[in-house]
């Protein structure tokens, strides 16, 4: 392959790869690990594949890398069909969950390894490895062995090894899950910075929604091998496409209700008229779910019109914010996260309170969306 040894154009950012995935499927016997998955990833985009374990996110990454051959579908990288191309010919960078540094090589040899495989000369290799180590802020660590580094440092080395040959696509398979919380946050920023500096396209697999929302331009939510929603972080949080996405990302109050085409009837007969924008997708008459984020609720007088009446069960004070756990008359639990300063001073458990939310915070999902 000609493009394996990439032309050194000098200054980054390189243009990231464009990826088109169409009808991708991976079946293991009767199990459909990935089913009819399609996505277009823009050049330089940071895409997160988010889902619980078994959702197919890792299988998709394995197929992008070339470790798994799809049962059906196509993967185009920059317009070139790579579906059946072996991984060593794809010119992709990859960071693995457990770093996967070669323990018998020094840090510098690890980072220079991809260059060695591409036939780059020894001095040039050393120079570029040192440069890549500088990019991940591990200047001068080249002579050490991986076993002498901390987890965070090892992951930086893995990152340096993945970018040293200036690939246009970087795959990351839950790269931060083995790190502790502080280090993870630091590395999130570090990876964001690198993405920005290098202009490389990144596909990042995670089961941590906070990580996906923080880092990615767009997030793809997967469940049972199927794409549930593909949107920018903010839209994903504020307007989940279906009940699964609504429940998977962040906290969500799910209130069962009846829908007659214009108004909602809650369990004990209260009627509410949500704004037209509140209905997500097409919702038929009958049983629906009213979804409201806990932080969109505010406490008000129980007799306020349109307020939900609820019995306060628990008040969990946590400094700046307070979590209120209450029950609607039909027993449905409802949670509100409110600023502690906005609360009336004497709230007692067992008391009846009113909960109200701005109309645009209401989302109505039909039953079929729960499938």
């Amino acid at each position, binding site marked *: 392959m000609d493009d394996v040894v990439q032309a050194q154009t000098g200054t980054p950012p390189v243009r990231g790869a464009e990826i088109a995935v169409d009808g991708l499927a991976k079946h293991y016997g009767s199990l459909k690990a990935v089913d009819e998955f399609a996505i277009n990833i823009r050049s330089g985009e940071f895409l997160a594949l988010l889902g619980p374990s078994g959702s197919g996110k890792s299988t998709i990454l394995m197929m992008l890398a070339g470790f798994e051959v799809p049962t059906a579908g196509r993967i185009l990288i920059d317009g070139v069909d790579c579906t059946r191309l*072996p991984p060593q010919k794809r010119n992709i960078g990859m960071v693995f969950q457990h770093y996967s540094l*070669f323990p018998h090589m020094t840090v510098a040899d690890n980072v220079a390894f991809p260059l060695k495989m591409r036939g780059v000369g020894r001095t040039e290799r050393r120079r570029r490895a040192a440069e890549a180590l500088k990019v991940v802020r591990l200047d001068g660590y080249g002579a050490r062995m991986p076993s002498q580094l901390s987890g965070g440092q090892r992951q930086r080395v893995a990152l340096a*090894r993945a970018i040293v040959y200036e690939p246009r696509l970087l795959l990351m398979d839950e790269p931060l899950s083995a790190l502790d919380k502080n280090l993870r946050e630091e590395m999130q920023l570090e990876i964001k910075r690198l993405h920005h500096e290098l202009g490389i396209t990144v596909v990042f697999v995670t089961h941590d929604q906070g990580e996906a929302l923080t880092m990615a331009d767009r997030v793809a939510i997967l469940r049972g091998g199927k794409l549930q929603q593909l949107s920018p972080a903010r839209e994903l949080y504020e307007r989940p496409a279906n009940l699964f996405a609504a429940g998977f990302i962040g906290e969500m109050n799910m209130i069962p209700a009846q829908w007659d085409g214009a108004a909602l009837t809650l369990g004990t007969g209260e009627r509410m008229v949500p704004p037209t924008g509140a209905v997500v997708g097409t919702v038929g008459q009958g049983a629906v779910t009213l979804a409201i984020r806990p932080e969109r609720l505010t406490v008000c007088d129980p007799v306020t019109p349109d307020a939900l009446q609820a019995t306060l069960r628990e008040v969990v004070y946590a400094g700046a914010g307070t979590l209120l756990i209450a029950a609607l008359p039909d027993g449905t639990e409802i949670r509100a996260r409110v600023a502690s300063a906005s609360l009336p001073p004497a709230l007692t458990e067992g008391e009846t309170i009113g909960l109200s939310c701005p109309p645009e915070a209401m989302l109505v999902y039909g039953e079929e969306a729960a499938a």
Partner: protein
Amino acid sequence: MSLQDFFRPDGRHLSRGGILLLMAPFFMLIAFAFLYPLISLLSLSVTEPTAGFDNYARILDNPVYGKVLLRTLWTALLVAITSLLLAFPVAMAMVSSSGPVAMLIGACILLPFWSSVLVRTAAWAVLLQRNGLINEAMQWFGITSEPIRLLYTQGAVVVAMTHVLMPFMVLPIYGALRNIPEDYGRAALICGAGPLRVFTEVTFPLALPGVLGGFILVFLTALGYFITPALLGSPQDMMIATLISQQLREFLDWPFAAALVGVLTLFVTAITLAFSKIFRFDRMMGGQV
């Protein structure tokens, strides 16, 4: 000592006394059945028939003994190398297979242990004899026109000893290969290494501790091997174990046999020390894989 003293306060590790207690029967067996006979034998070599190193001088004086020693080292080396060449692919196959296939390979490796070495050696004698299966097959295929001598050659000894000792090579290599995380191979591939380079740059170097362990085990066992060379080798191509046995049983020359044992022990010790140096060096390089 109460049971409490057996453990360290953490409850999971043994106290020093506990370790000693566990090892005591084994130490006693070693001292009684190995160290004592070895020391008394070696002392025989420097006290009989006269005090001094006369017996060792005899080994040096007659080039025949040096030749036997060299042949023994060479044969053991051949056996170890052949075992390695045969065992590595088997270990690779074991690591990358699962379920019934893995069980089948494992059974093939362990099956020889269910029959005695004598039976396996005798089987080779049957195969290699003048009108045995191998000679007949070679004539049938037209490779040879008449039966050739296969039995009672160094080749027969190497082949049969490789067969007997190969499991000791497979198991440590298998252990080392199995400890290499799957992601290492993937990481090497995505870095641009083809399958062959994944092997030479990552898999083999990381399997080296297992290779060295298997190699030393097979080599040292082959050095002192008796039955197979005695049954399948020629008297002209004698190995040291056969020589020692001859000195003991035919010439009843215990002091000289003891000196030969001393030389063999010296070689085994030196080689073990050399290998363990390499081992430690390797551990320093690789950390824990």
